[in-house]
């Protein structure tokens, strides 16, 4: 199996102490889980630093030019970890939700990481396919790869899962009266990457809008019509929206996202039927914030205008 640890000449497993987790894709898909789990196993865990302008510039330089932005950022975070740790954890994510499949790019990620990383660094990987094996089993496999005892693995799994539940259950802030209510949707790795989404969310707030981020804690989405896991959760949420409670939806997509190219049409269809205004913002490598700010202001203004118009007509 990939990532099996090398044995020393005396037959004992060499026990590595340091393991790195890139702060991208897998980190946001399972917030808090891997960090807690590996720490509980007794590893010294390094998570790459939160993204900055430098990360994006580095990503543009070293990554395959046609990758989507999150995968490019993943490459930059991976490069940052190289040299700092002995092992880097990159799971092969095939499905994060029973009955669904993950974005195909995530399946090739450990192989790509191995192809890109300089020698001397071991990429450690397990298959995550919640269609076939429960998450706990994948975690146990990882524990065994790292040569941990079953009891330790069991305990670590429990703690990691509760950390995951806590991180996923984003508390909903109390709504301000008389303010507009927006739902912000997007893949967790776009929505929760503070460098990518932070300025946009701040801008929304500064315009006096209550913004709620879509939650990925609800795992009940059906695989029809969208089979991709995170997209399906968002599609499901949009279908359950009550039009009177929401004034708008903002979709944070990322440049060259294959999944969003298909499903954003479906999101828009749902929202058109419910008559909820929707705007898609595409995150890319541009540093200028002005363009996004103007679009947000215009979007909020036009909604306010519409509300006033409706009020005077009645």
């Amino acid at each position, binding site marked *: 199996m990939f990532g099996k640890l090398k044995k020393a000449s005396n037959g004992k497993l060499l026990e590595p102490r340091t393991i790195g987790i890139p702060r991208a894709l897998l980190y946001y898909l399972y917030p808090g889980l891997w960090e807690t789990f590996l720490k509980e196993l007794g590893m010294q865990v390094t998570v790459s630093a939160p993204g900055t302008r430098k990360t994006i510039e580095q990503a543009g330089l070293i990554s395959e030019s046609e990758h989507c932005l999150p995968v490019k950022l993943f490459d930059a975070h991976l490069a940052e970890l190289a040299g700092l740790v002995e092992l880097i954890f990159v799971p092969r994510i095939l499905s994060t939700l029973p009955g669904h499949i993950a974005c*195909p790019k995530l399946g090739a990620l450990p192989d790509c990481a191995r192809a890109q990383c300089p020698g001397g660094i071991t990429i450690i990987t397990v298959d995550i396919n919640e269609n076939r094996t429960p998450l706990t089993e994948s975690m146990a496999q990882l524990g065994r790869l790292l040569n941990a005892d079953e009891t330790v693995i069991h305990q670590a799994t429990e703690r990691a899962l509760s950390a995951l539940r806590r991180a996923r259950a984003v508390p909903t802030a109390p709504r301000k009266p008389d303010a507009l209510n927006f739902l912000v949707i997007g893949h967790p790795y776009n929505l929760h990457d503070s460098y990518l989404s932070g300025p946009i969310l701040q801008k929304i707030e500064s315009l006096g809008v209550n913004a709620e981020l879509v939650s990925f804690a609800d795992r009940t989405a059906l695989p029809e019509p969208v089979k991709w896991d995170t997209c399906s959760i968002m599609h499901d949420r949009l279908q359950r929206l009550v039009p009177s409670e929401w004034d708008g939806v903002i979709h944070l997509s990322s440049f060259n996202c294959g999944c969003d190219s*298909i499903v954003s049409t479906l999101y828009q269809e749902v929202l058109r039927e419910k008559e909820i205004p929707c705007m898609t913002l595409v995150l890319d490598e541009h540093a200028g914030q002005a363009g996004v700010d103007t679009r947000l202001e215009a979007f909020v203004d036009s909604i306010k205008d519409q509300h006033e118009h409706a009020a005077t007509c009645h």
Partner: protein
Amino acid sequence: MSMPQLAIEPWGNYSLALAASVECLHVRPWTHTCTTPEILKLGVEASPEFSCLSFKVTTGHFIKAAMEGVEYGVMVNSQGPCRLRYYRMLQQKLLKERGFNLFIFGLGYDGIKPPLIRHFNPTMNDFLRCCFRARLKVVTIDELETAAWTKRAVELRAGDTTRAMNACIKDLDQARTVPEIKAFRKTIPARFNQISVDVNRRPLKVALLGEATILRNSFLNQNLEEILGGLGVEVRNFFLLGEEMRNIFNIGTGSKYGWKAMRKLAKPYLGTPVGGHALASVAHTLRCAQDGYDGVIHVAPAGCMPEISVRPILRKISQDKDIPVFECSFDEHTSQVGLVTRLEAFVDVLYDRKTKKEL
């Protein structure tokens, strides 16, 4: 009452074979062996911005067909993680939004008697006869393509092979019955042998692999095969429908290009099929390195999810196995010049390597 028409997605020369296969349904096939700029424009206008070229072009075909009054269309179904899974659903929506009444049937993964067959309900006899005829045409086209690749690299008068190929395709289209197709097939070697060749030329051998629609559609790949042939390169296009069908229907999958062999070969570099032909791209690149190809050209529509995701792996293989890999993405730009310049440079490098190796 006139026969209803059925639009078939464009598959290069294989469109002929697909057209032959639907004759048993008592429909008139609507298809082109090549896309036109107009079709591409229609598709690009209707499709989401970041969707891949394959989606845009098939959408364009269906819109064009609908504008010409075609009632039905057929599109392959997919169960994989690639965007192909959503093509039909989305195309049906896009057509409906524009007020067209073209119904698209899915094909594949929907039972032993798919809706397309159930709707037109051909007799078993007709159906089998047409399937057999279509398969024979596919195999014949495979043979024509293979012959053209070798001849084009050594032809004395530029364009002879393409002319012979076009004439053959025309004749094959005319051949309606199995004996006719078989008789035609026998004439292929003689027809290609008439082309005068330069016996002293030792052409480079380059593999074309990647995404199937682009590999097969000479409009989308800007006549890649002919450009390379003109530069004295013998190409091997790794998408042959005959080979692909064996994999689809699980026949002889243990053979050299069967998926079992490919999966085993690709295992050290890629542990999952990813979707599309990504695994095949990795396996074929490794195979080409073993078989002594001079280079590999990886072809994909810009932003193709599976193919782009394996590009870092192809780069690694290129380093490890010392085989040049040229990555080439296609979008709706139709100017050939940029591509020709890049290909000329690549071929120059390959010649250089070959001469140095021989010294």
